[in-house]
């Protein structure tokens, strides 16, 4: 049991001393997951709203597939991206595997269905009334979609935060396409996984605490923002 308390003590020490390696790992995690969340949101939010309010045949089936895609396992995404980006794969000539870019690509693909599904569900249940008003005021499709995004921005922000949490806490995809290379592609989750298999707990615990802290901060910001409005 000693090594647990010992681990916590050393973890706190690492955090207080702003250990350079910890800092580097944490900032890379934030960079990768933020980029992925931004890209995924830019693509998925307008599409989610568009399909959410659109009436079309087979929408029930479409909803079901969408909601299934939301929980696609990260290792599967990682595997697919690794196969595509590897030197023998279709995009092999770009030398992307085991780079930050590959990690961003994988996480973008991972959270895109999540953002899409959440936005889609939101627009489906609450976009209708806004769409009606927009229509009667002469808005076209583009105006309608942007209006709905603005009107539902708080809920959409919560969805974005959810996507970011998923991205920053997943380990499967970044491990496979990033390779956990020190100083290049090592992020919080891959380090924790590695430190555990090395039996080196303090660093793992320290990074675990940072991960929880990031989650807490993000959700506090969102919460206070939604209170303000």
């Amino acid at each position, binding site marked *: 049991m000693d090594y647990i308390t010992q681990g916590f003590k050393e973890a706190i020490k690492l955090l207080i001393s702003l250990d350079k390696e910890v800092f580097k790992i944490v900032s890379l995690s934030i960079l990768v997951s933020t980029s992925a969340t931004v890209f995924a949101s830019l693509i998925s939010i307008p599409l989610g709203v568009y399909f959410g309010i659109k009436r079309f045949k087979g929408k029930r089936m479409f909803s079901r597939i969408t909601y299934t895609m939301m929980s696609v396992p990260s290792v599967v995404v990682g595997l697919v991206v690794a196969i595509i980006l590897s030197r023998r794969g279709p995009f092999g000539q770009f030398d992307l595997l085991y780079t930050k870019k590959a990690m961003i690509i994988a996480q973008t693909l991972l959270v895109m269905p999540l953002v899409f599904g959440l936005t889609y569900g939101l627009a489906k249940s609450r976009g209708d009334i806004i769409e009606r008003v927009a229509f*009667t*005021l002469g808005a*076209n499709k583009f105006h309608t979609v942007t*209006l709905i995004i603005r*009107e539902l921005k708080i809920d959409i922000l919560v969805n974005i935060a959810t996507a970011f949490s998923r991205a920053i806490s997943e380990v499967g995809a970044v491990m496979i396409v990033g390779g956990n290379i020190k100083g290049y592609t090592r992020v919080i989750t891959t380090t924790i996984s590695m430190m555990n298999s090395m039996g080196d707990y303090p660093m793992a615990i320290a990074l675990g605490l940072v991960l929880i802290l990031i989650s807490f901060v993000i959700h506090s910001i969102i919460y206070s923002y939604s209170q303000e409005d």
Partner: protein
Amino acid sequence: MEITIENLERYYGDRRVLYIEKMEIEKGKITAITGPNGCGKTTLLNIIAGLDREFSGVIKYDGKYLNRETVDKMTIVFQKPYLFRRTVFENIEYPLRIRGINKVNRKPLVVDLAKGLEIENLMGKKAHLLSGGESQKVALARALVFKPELLLLDEPTSNIDPDAINTLEREILKFNKETECTVLIVTHNMEQAKRLGNRIIELSYN
């Protein structure tokens, strides 16, 4: 805008909720539609507004079927208005903004309407925090700001105070007179129908 309706039918499942053999809404006039609850007044309005397409029969606007151009020239004010989560000013200017009218030209149009409806003191307030009467005034201003040729009103004054009703009715009449906009108002209040309507149509159960 002139509207002609022929053999209009709307079903909810097996139940026919609306049937109109023939109806003409005269251009430039105010037509009031009254009738008991559930006689299809609101359904009719939604169909004319283009929000409900699940009907059979023919509706023509100035002799033509509904198209994009027609949609741009008409609007509807609902019984319970939905205002955007923005300021009153931004709500009212929205139709002008999406029509590409620049900021400098938007302002006087908005201010003018706001004065008439006695809401110029609310311009900076968040619209979704207003009272019922205030909300309805903002909704009307937002509907009138782009000078529609057809104005559809669905019980616009239910549940609001008499002062606000007076103001709203006055502005509707004024707008109709100044722009020769065709107005179609659905109301269960016969007095209001008489006050506003050049013509009253009573809809009955089908």
